[in-house]
C-alpha cells in the first residue's frame, strides 16, 4: 500500500503540466463559449426563402431586417406578388392571383407552414423553422 506515494506522484505529475495544459483547457473553454454564442445567434436567425418555379430567387435573414420593406416578385408574365418584410417576419401584401390564398395566409415568422401561391408557383418558407416539428401536414 503506498497511497501517500501515489498522491505525491499525482501532484508531481500535474505540476509541470499546469501552465501548458491549463492554458490549453482555458483556451478550449473559451472556444466553447465563443462557439456556443455564435451557434445560439445562428439559431435565432430566421432565414426566409422565396422560391418561384422551383428555384430560390431570394433569401432574406429576417433577424437582420431592421425596417419595413416591400418589393415585388414576378410581373414578367406569370403575375406578381408584393412581398413585405418586417423584423422577424414576412408576408404577401398583395398579388394578382385569382384566389389570393397567399395574401390571406398572412405573416410567416418561424412556422414550418409555408406561404403558397399556387397560381404563381410561388412559395415562401422558413429554412431554419422552429424545432417543434420536422414538417407540417396541411
Amino acid at each position, binding site marked *: 500500500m503506498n497511497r501517500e506515494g501515489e498522491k505525491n506522484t499525482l501532484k508531481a505529475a500535474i505540476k509541470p503540466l499546469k501552465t501548458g*495544459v491549463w492554458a490549453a483547457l482555458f483556451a478550449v473553454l473559451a472556444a466553447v463559449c465563443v462557439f456556443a454564442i455564435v451557434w445560439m445567434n445562428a439559431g435565432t436567425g430566421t432565414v426566409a426563402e422565396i422560391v418561384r418555379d422551383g428555384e430560390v430567387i431570394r433569401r432574406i435573414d429576417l433577424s437582420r431586417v431592421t425596417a419595413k420593406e416591400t418589393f415585388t416578385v414576378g410581373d414578367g408574365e406569370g403575375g406578381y406578388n408584393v412581398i413585405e418584410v418586417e423584423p422577424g417576419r414576412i408576408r404577401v401584401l398583395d398579388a394578382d392571383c385569382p384566389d389570393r390564398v397567399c395574401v390571406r395566409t398572412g*405573416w410567416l415568422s418561424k412556422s414550418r407552414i409555408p406561404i403558397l401561391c399556387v397560381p404563381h408557383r410561388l412559395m415562401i418558407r422558413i429554412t431554419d423553422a422552429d424545432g417543434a416539428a420536422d414538417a407540417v*401536414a396541411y
Partner: protein
Amino acid sequence: MRRSRPNETLKRTVQNGLLVFVLSFLLCLFSGCAAGLFGGTAGQTETERTVYAMDTYLTVRAYGDASDNTSEAILDRVLDDALKEVEALEKKLSVTIETSEIAKANATGSAALSTVTAELLTRALELCEETDGALDITVYPLVRAWGFTTGETRVPGEEEIRELLPYVDYRRVALGYSVTLEDGMAIDLGSVAKGFACDKMARRLKDVTGSALIDFGGNICAIGAKPDGSDWRIGVRSPEGNDLLGVLSVRDRFVVTSGGYERCFTDADGNLRWHIIDPKTGYPARNGLLSVTVVGTKGIRCDALSTALFVMGTEKAIGFWREKGDFGMILVTDDGRLLVTPDLAKTFTADKNAPYAQETIREAE
C-alpha cells in the same frame, strides 16, 4: 498488486489522459462546428430537393451515412430518379396538361392507358368504392363549376348544380387497357395522385436510406426515423389560423391532412366555400368537420381517406374508422372538438394554444 515503476507510469498516464482529454475536446468542438456549418447531424449527410410538381411544392430530404462516401452519390441519383418519376407521372395524370392520358379521356371520352395510370385508376376506383362514393374521382365537373380549377371561384346556380350531378358517378368509369367516360363526365385524380406519388418515391428511398422525409404540398411521408434515431416530429396544421394543432411522433408513416382552409373563398352572402365538394350534393362538404388528418402506411390510402372522411362528416368518419381500424385519424369539428383515435392519442401532443377540447375516440360505441 505490484507495480514496477509507479511514479513513471502514473505520470505518463496522467499526461496521456490530459492530452487525450484536450484532443478529444477539440475534436468534439470541430465536429460540432462542422455539423453546425453543414446543417446536419454529425456522421450524416443531407440531400435535399425542392421542385414544383402537381400544382404545389415537393420537398424531399434524404439522409445518408457520412462515413460511406458512396452514399451521397447514391442518394443524389435516387432522388433524381424519384423526381423524374413524379414528373413523368404528372404528364400522364394532369387535367391541365392537354396531352396527358386523363386530359385526353376528359376531352374525348376515351384514352389508352399506360400501366402506371391504369394502376392508379384501379386503386382510386377501389377507394371510391370502399368509401361508398364519399371520394369520387368524377366530381371534377362540379369542382370546375365552382371555379376551383382556375382559382376564379364562383357560386354556381342551383339549376347548374342539379344539371351537373348526374355526371358524377365513379361506377360509370369503364376501365381496362383504356378508360372510357360517358358524355359530360370528367375525372380528376388530384385527391390521390400526390399520395400515390409519395408511395412510389418512398419505395425508392427505402432501398437506400433509413431516414428521409417527403413533403408533397403538406402531404408528409416520414421514412424510417430521424438521422439521430429518434421519431420524426410531424406538425398538424390547425384549420383556423397559421398555427399548429399539435405534433405527432411517427416512424415510417404517412400523415395527410385535408381541410377547408386550403383553398376557399367567401361568397356574396358571407359563407365560406371550400374546394372539397360533396359528390352527393354538389356543394362544398359541410358535415361538421374543419379538418381531417389521416396517419397510415400507404400514401394513396391516407390521401384518399383524408378527403373522403372530410366529406363523410364526424359520425360517419368515426363509423368508418371503427369498421376498418387500419389507420389513425385526428378530426377537428366545427363545434371546437379535437377527436383523436386511441393509437394516435399516445403519440400526439396538442399545442398549448390550440383552442380545441381533446377527446379520444372510443374503439366501439
